[in-house]
């Protein structure tokens, strides 16, 4: 296991060269890269990443930050069967909690579709352009706020 980050650096530089002012580097660890992009530009960055070889979405994680009144969506993108297979690329974006609308990346990665649907359901983040933005896991008669928001408290706790 190599603990150097040269390959990751080189990869990130390649992306930075194209999207100099758009992306914000969060961290580069061995085999892990995380960048943050604004929701307006995420589609272009995602398309570029797919062209680089990151061809599958492993997870879409939404996180609620009530302290900064923001919500975060992180796409963890992996490369299947090419030379980047050991790298997990995290592509993050932040939106305001008041009106959480982000563009859907289903057109770039079809594999993001169900993950985005789940994130929509659990956090109430709307993915613009998603073909099927509806209930998935929660009961049909769920009338409460989306459960993964921080103000939703589990019954009987705190």
């Amino acid at each position, binding site marked *: *296991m190599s603990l150097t980050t040269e390959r990751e650096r080189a990869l990130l530089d390649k992306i930075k060269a194209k999207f100099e002012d758009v992306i914000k580097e969060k961290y580069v660890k061995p085999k892990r890269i995380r960048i943050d992009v604004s929701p307006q530009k995420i589609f272009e960055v995602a398309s570029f990443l797919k062209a680089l070889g990151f061809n599958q979405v492993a997870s879409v*994680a939404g996180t609620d930050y009530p302290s900064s009144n923001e919500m975060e969506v992180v796409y963890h993108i992996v490369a299947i069967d090419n030379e980047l297979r050991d790298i997990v690329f995290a592509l993050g974006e932040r939106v305001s909690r008041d009106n959480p609308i982000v563009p859907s990346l289903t057109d770039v990665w079809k594999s993001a579709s169900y993950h985005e649907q789940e994130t929509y359901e659990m956090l109430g983040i709307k993915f613009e352009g998603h073909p099927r933005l509806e209930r998935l896991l929660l009961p049909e008669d769920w009338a409460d706020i989306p459960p993964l928001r921080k103000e*939703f408290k589990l019954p009987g706790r705190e």
Partner: protein
Amino acid sequence: MAERTLTLSIGPQHPGAGHFRLIVVLDGDIVVDVKPDPGYVHRGAEKMAEYRTYIQNIPHLERPVIIDSSGILFPYVLASEELLDLPPPPRAQYIRIIMAELNRIISHLYWLGIYGVFVGHTTMFLWPVGDRELFIDLAQMIAGARVTFAFFVPGGVRNDIPDDFPDKAIKVCNYYEKRLKEYEKIFFYNPLVLKRTQGVGILKREDAIELGATGPNLRGSGVKSDVRKDEPYSSYDDIDFEIPVYKDGDCWSRCMVRLGELYQSMNIIKQAIKKMPSGPVKNAKRGVLKGIEGEAFARTESARGTMAYYIISDGKPYPYRLKLSVPSFRCLSLMKHLLVNQHVADIPAIYWGLDYWPVEADK
């Protein structure tokens, strides 16, 4: 169109689906539309994990996949070790490999039993379920439980393996490698099984990658992708094993990938027993475990595919956010793709060929 079609709800109480509903629209014997409807066993595992400490999450997070409970815990301990700064000692890593592979065998045999009975082969239900006991006994020797082991902890494993374990494990593996040949004769190369599974539910290589298939489903489509090789975690880079890959992408390929993995898992167990170093099995750090501020993403190859955890910590003993990305959930996008334009009788063959585990997908 509307008069011609018949809508069937397969599940959640039909034996063909588990805790899961497939809304299937039929035109004669051909499926024209499929809508997977998960969520019958959704418990909110991610939300519940935010209320539990890193140790308390261990028995909790096993619950979604009780037949592969080590598989679902493995990435969790890897991610939380990164956050808690608790590197495991080398012996623990080998014990983890043995346990994970045992659990892969247990899970694959369970799948094989279900798959056997779902293509109507009663013997292939009872043989794997019976022989699975051998491996459950081995797992019980190590972890003290038969299903939910709660064996991996951040910083190592709970206990060392007993002294008589290596002999017994090698004996069982040697026996079972011979036994699998009988399985091949009666099931995998049985002409009627070939008729049922070959050329059914074809998932092409490009579609498999595009739709997000992982694990045996992906390898059945000819993609050589396995986290154990791609990004060797624990001690998998010390061990010499192969990834079975089949090109056709039909149900039979997915079966054969899992059969190959049974052989490979026994191979890995035998090697790990031989190569295991001595030493402690647990990082003896004391005190309340608090995560350092930051985030970690860890992935492993569980029995069904890439299992991944994304944990965000804000310096408290609890994770701030825990995202569980499970392989079964990714199968949902495959279902419509594979089931449309197939026969009714192929629904169980394809559906169970994906090894979809509803509880895992619902979390």
